């Protein structure tokens, strides 16, 4: 099989990049990484080389170029059926895809108010949380609870073992953590399990070494 190269953005800020990267690490899929810092001169030209959409992450595999985190993960799940990147049972898989897609297209209020910023000291958002953000948080906690209740018996993740659904929610976990958003005991346990993964720790270490600052994503 051809080698994989994953083009990603800054580890400190790029929530989309974290998803694909973390899943590939958790499922032991070897790849080369190319980091393209966002918001510096030449970023657009460099991204354009990888992706017509002007977006990261992008996975290169031989002649194939796959973009959008969820499409990348579907592609890999097909290439490595033995790794069970989605849950094995059809019912669980359907639910995993629903929650993953809801993350992919939703929760705008939370994402806008609380940008992923791994270096930010953990403290509540100075402006407080709007009603819309709180509604997003409640919905996310509900989804986690439903997944864990229905399928979480075999481990600490949404569907027991780590799956693509967890990778999709990893950037949400970091936001809850960074902005000290109050959550239930069960949500806290889930967050701790995700934060304790080797892949997440490695990503965070990479983020800590970066020097780039994106002013728009630094909120008080």
């Amino acid at each position, binding site marked *: 099989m051809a080698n994989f190269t994953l083009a990603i953005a800054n580890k400190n800020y790029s929530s989309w990049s974290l998803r694909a990267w973390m899943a590939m690490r958790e499922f032991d899929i070897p790849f080369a990484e190319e980091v393209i810092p966002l918001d510096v001169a030449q970023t657009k030209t460099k991204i354009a080389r990888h992706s017509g*959409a002007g977006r990261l992450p992008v996975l290169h595999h031989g002649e194939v170029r*796959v973009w*959008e985190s969820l499409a990348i993960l579907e592609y890999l799940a097909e290439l490595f059926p033995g790794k069970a990147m989605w849950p094995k049972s059809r019912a669980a898989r359907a639910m995993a895809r629903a929650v993953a897609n809801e993350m992919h297209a939703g929760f705008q209020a939370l994402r806008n108010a609380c940008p992923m910023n791994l270096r930010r000291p953990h403290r509540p958002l100075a402006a407080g949380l709007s009603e819309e953000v709180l509604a997003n948080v409640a919905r996310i906690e509900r989804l986690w609870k439903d997944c864990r209740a229905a399928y979480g018996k075999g481990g600490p993740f949404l569907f027991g073992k780590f799956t693509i659904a967890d990778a999709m929610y990893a950037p949400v976990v970091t936001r809850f953590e960074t902005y000290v958003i109050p959550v239930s005991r069960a949500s806290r346990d889930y967050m701790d399990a995700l934060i304790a993964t080797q892949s997440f720790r490695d990503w965070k270490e990479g983020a800590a070494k970066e020097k780039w600052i994106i002013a728009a994503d630094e909120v008080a």
Partner: protein
Amino acid sequence: MAEFHLFIGNKCFSSWSLRPWIAMKQLDLPFEETVIRLRQPDTKANIRALARSEKLPCLHHGRRVIWESIAILEYLAELFADAHLWPKDQDARALARSMSAEMHAGFLEFRQQWGMNLRRKKSPKPLEGAARDQAKRIEDYWRRMRASFGGGGPFLFGHFTAADAMYAPVVSRFDTYGGTLSPDTRAYCDAVLATDGMRQWYAGAAAEPWPEPSPDE
């Protein structure tokens, strides 16, 4: 009772609902349909009570409740593997999923400026700013997929796939607001508009008794 039950919003403007609906029609899959009127004080409660969901569209299959248009399409693609709801070729399938995922989460300005409204009179409305680039990118995807994989039929990957379903609301927007389209964009739009699924959806929209959306919204 049909094996499948799809819960959707108003056909005149619920672009999310159109996606799984047209795919199920193109798959020739019998299903029961419930339309839940959007933008009403009790919409949320109705979605919860009837669809047992927070969002539309939502598919019930036995005890399974599946929401999000792409998740529903992936579910159907797995159940009916022989229908090839995703392209057969692995590289083509990767592209189909990438452009579908981008549609699912992106093109926000385009979607806002050209809101799906099947009641609106067809007349050109120029796009501004980012939306214009997004329209160009969409047309570029269509052109490239048609050129690389479209040999076997009039759709993006030849036969009708989930990618066509995901872009069906975009087709209606080009048709409504786009004015004179480039010949290849026009040809692709016409192919989608001519499907049984799309014609039945438009007929359903025309029969809706509710005042919303207004024709010039």
